[in-house]
């Protein structure tokens, strides 16, 4: 979005959201690398893992088809992350609760900023209404993964590190329904919800993102930057 925003103020705002997310990813990956204790760094985890070792939700790798897609994708992720960080901010692990508490403040802003755009676009012009409705419709199939549960999720729920899939689903649906109603938009028709990212299955977009992101580290493995 940087240098591609609809106007300068929003270009700056969207970049802020990106910077927050990068900071959160860095903090979490640094901690993950430390817990793993195999001498890998956060950068190793980012730049040297192949596609199938990435477990990000497919929603996050969907392209910025237009401003509405970027807003809707990040809005749904902000809702999800808000709940995740809220839960993690209360766990015993101090590093994790520290990261989550800081991130929670940032994500609250994302929720409000992106939520305002959902309202404005939905209740703006005919064109913006159609574009944001299309974005919700086309991204809807990726929402199911956000409340899907595997064994690890159940373990985390058991120790208080995650809420249940049902809780997450009802929270997401209630937030999204009220936000769509306010924006004069409709809840997308029930669709087949895609699944797989927890097993490293992705849409084809991820490969291109990684190719670009990992290019220098892969082309010059001995170099320090």
């Amino acid at each position, binding site marked *: 979005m*940087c*240098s*591609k*925003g*609809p*106007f*300068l*103020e*929003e*270009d*700056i705002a969207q*970049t*802020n959201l*990106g*910077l927050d997310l*990068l*900071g959160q*990813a*860095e903090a979490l*990956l640094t901690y993950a690398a430390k817990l793993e204790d195999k001498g890998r760094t*956060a*950068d190793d985890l*980012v*730049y040297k893992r192949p596609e199938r070792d990435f477990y990000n939700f497919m929603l996050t790798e969907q392209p910025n088809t*237009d*401003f509405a897609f970027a807003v809707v994708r990040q809005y749904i992720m902000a809702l999800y992350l808000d709940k995740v960080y809220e839960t993690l901010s209360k766990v015993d692990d101090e590093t994790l609760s520290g990261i989550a508490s800081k991130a929670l403040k940032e994500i609250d802003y994302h929720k409000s900023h992106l939520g305002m755009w959902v*309202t*404005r*676009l939905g*209740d*703006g*012009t005919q*064109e*913006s209404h159609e*574009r944001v409705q299309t974005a919700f419709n086309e991204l809807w199939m990726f929402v199911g993964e956000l409340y899907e549960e595997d064994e690890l999720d159940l373990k985390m729920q058991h120790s208080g590190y995650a809420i249940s899939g049902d809780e997450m689903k009802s929270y997401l649906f209630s937030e999204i329904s009220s936000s769509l109603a306010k924006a004069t938009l409709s809840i997308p028709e029930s669709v087949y919800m895609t699944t797989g990212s927890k097993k490293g299955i992705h849409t084809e977009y991820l490969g291109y*993102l990684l190719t*670009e*992101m990992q*290019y*220098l*580290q892969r082309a*010059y493995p*001995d*170099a*320090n*930057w």
Partner: protein
Amino acid sequence: MGAEKLEVLFQERIDANEKIEPRDYMPEEYRQHLIRQMSQHAHSEVIGMQPEGNWITRAPSLRAKKILLAKVQDEAGHGLYIYSATETLGVTRDELISRLHQGKAKYASIFNYPALTWADMGAIGWLVDGAAITNQVSLQKTSYGPYSRSMVKICKEESFHQRQGYEIIAAMAKGTSEQKEMAQDALNRFWWPSLMMFGPHDSDSPRTGNAMKWKIKRESNDVLRQRFIDKTVSQAELIGLTIPDPDLKWNEERGSYDFGEIDWDEFWSVVKGGGPCNLKRLNHHKKAHNDGAWVRKAAAAYAKKHLNK
């Protein structure tokens, strides 16, 4: 009061180093000169987001990515300050952008050169921002209040940018042989265009006269260019890179470096649209602006609906 008398008083204020504020009297030529210079400056900040923006997705570490993204965001912020300062002269941002799109307003030619390797992120921060700071530090004392204040704010961030760029190129210069080669190549490509950023020689700079008289410009192109060269040469030496100018030589008598002749044909051809990226930069800006039109319309329509409720 007659126009002549007003102009005399205006010049007296300038001579006494007073700042001119938006509601103060100013000659029309002063206003037009500022609009031209400040909008060119604002456009440069915004177009300047592109060569570096082009590398954000390929930054080689999380730290480098964060810093570069924050830097490009700063450029957007600088563009915004300067557009706002320019609007105090009675012109809107929309008009300024439309002049840019019509090719009536320029931006710094340096951004018409491509950013080819990661070392270019170093060279741009170090040399391009370095040249820009040299110019902007001088502009902090410009006579128009809003412009001067925006320069003060911008200079603080620019010095961080220059350090960021120097850090990248320094790390590469002491890295693998391939990295060092990239660093030297980036210096080779960006050195001369950076010197061109200060504009033509004073003897060939038609607008400098009025700009100096009105203290819009406080120091001449050649003075600023020399200052930049003098401080940059030792920075290159420190990291083992060679400035691509066989005529570069310390002149004991002047206490400055002598340097080779700039290729002014290249300068003018890039200014006139012949640079490798002129078309791409402008088209990118137009596309982002046009793609955003429906978003701006939606925001305006929403605001109107809810204001009337």
